[in-house]
């Protein structure tokens, strides 16, 4: 992929990601591989709606060096680690999507998925060990958790979704959100007993009952 094409791909993905409700503001980041040694990524801390394609930062996979005055996302190391370990991956989205983040906060793996989810994600989506944002520990743990799947959750943080191209990475992110929602709802049904229709209100009423009984 040419540098201009990669920048344009990431720029377009920013708008799509916000529209899809998978990130808000600057929480999350997106990258596309240019060649075996470089990728472009969203800049650190900037609001997606204000960005242009030229703002996307070119980063070297080997040492995370970059040119220009605009700093790349602080999670550049996470993207680089995934590109290093999984040569078939050409696009990565790091989301703070609501349901996958909830599963990640309980540090559970998603298993027992519906076939329409597992066909895309694999039979398991793991939650990586906790690491502080932007650290090598988080990057290594997340890349490890991605083995055998297109997605991994990051403990107490969010998720990372990988694809052969940006289109696939988006499909993975959307599917992960559905799978995570289903995982939470099944757990709620198991805990609360059958017969309760899963709505936000039913969940909140049951939660308040649990709190009151303690």
């Amino acid at each position, binding site marked *: 992929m040419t540098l201009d094409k990669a920048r344009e791909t990431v720029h377009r993905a920013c708008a799509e990601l916000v529209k899809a409700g998978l990130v*808000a503001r600057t929480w999350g980041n997106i990258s596309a591989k240019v060649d075996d040694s470089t990728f472009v990524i969203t800049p650190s801390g*900037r609001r997606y709606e204000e960005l242009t394609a030229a703002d996307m930062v070119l980063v070297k996979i080997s040492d995370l060096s970059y040119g220009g005055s605009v700093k790349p996302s602080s999670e550049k190391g996470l993207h680089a680690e995934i590109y290093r370990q999984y040569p078939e991956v050409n696009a990565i989205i790091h989301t703070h999507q609501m349901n996958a983040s909830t599963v990640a*906060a*309980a540090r559970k793996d998603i298993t027992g998925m519906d076939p329409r989810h597992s066909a895309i994600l694999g039979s398991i989506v793991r939650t990586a060990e906790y690491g*502080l*944002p932007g650290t090598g520990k988080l990057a290594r743990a997340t890349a490890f958790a991605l083995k055998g799947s297109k997605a991994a959750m990051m403990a107490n943080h969010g998720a990372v979704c990988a694809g052969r191209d940006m289109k696939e990475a988006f499909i993975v992110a959307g599917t992960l959100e559905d799978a995570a929602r289903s995982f*939470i709802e099944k757990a709620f049904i198991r805990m609360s007993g059958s017969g309760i229709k899963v709505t936000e209100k039913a*969940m*909140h009423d049951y*939660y308040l009952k649990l709190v009151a009984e303690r």
Partner: protein
Amino acid sequence: MKLDQARAEFISWARTYYNENFISGSEGSISCRIGDTMLITPRRKSPATLTPEDVILIDIPGGSMSSGANPPADMSLHRAVYRKYKETGAIVHTVEPNTMTSSMAGKTVYPLLDDLAQIVGPTTRVARYSEPVDAGIRASVVRGLKKRSAVLLSGGGALCMGANLDEAHAVCQVLMKGCKCFIETEFLGGGIRINPVETRLMRLVYLIKYSKQNVKNR
């Protein structure tokens, strides 16, 4: 900023908060500070039909009202927070459902997600709350906000604050997600808390560095 422009921007933000369910037509309130003046939404008036004349103007030091009618029941709470926290430029009393349920549970919300620690603080405390708002409630809320960007109001939602209405909006969004996570992880065997030292470290790094990147990183 001229008052007319401030009122127009304020109404636009009130509609955003309303459309995203952070406030309803009958509950919740929004305010911002322009110099010594506080702009605040009136009681039981839907933001969808709010006009510039409806926006209430209050003198923060003296408490007198110079424009509008029917101040909300929590008006004195907004004023007390502005008087205590000089860097606060906007306050939202949100009644969003996840935040409301957490306020009804009355439990301190610990950050189960990094962004709650960064943007709201290492804990979200629960302050006393009922209407009419008295001096004891104001003191409890002001105390609850110490080194935090939000506080739960017992049984009444939460008060979120920021340097402006955009920042307060970010606080509302992150608190909503944090509360939702706090509630729903109960069905997954419970959320795993982040180490308290690390939550403090993340909050510090966010305040010193990351929160300024949108302007600095160009």
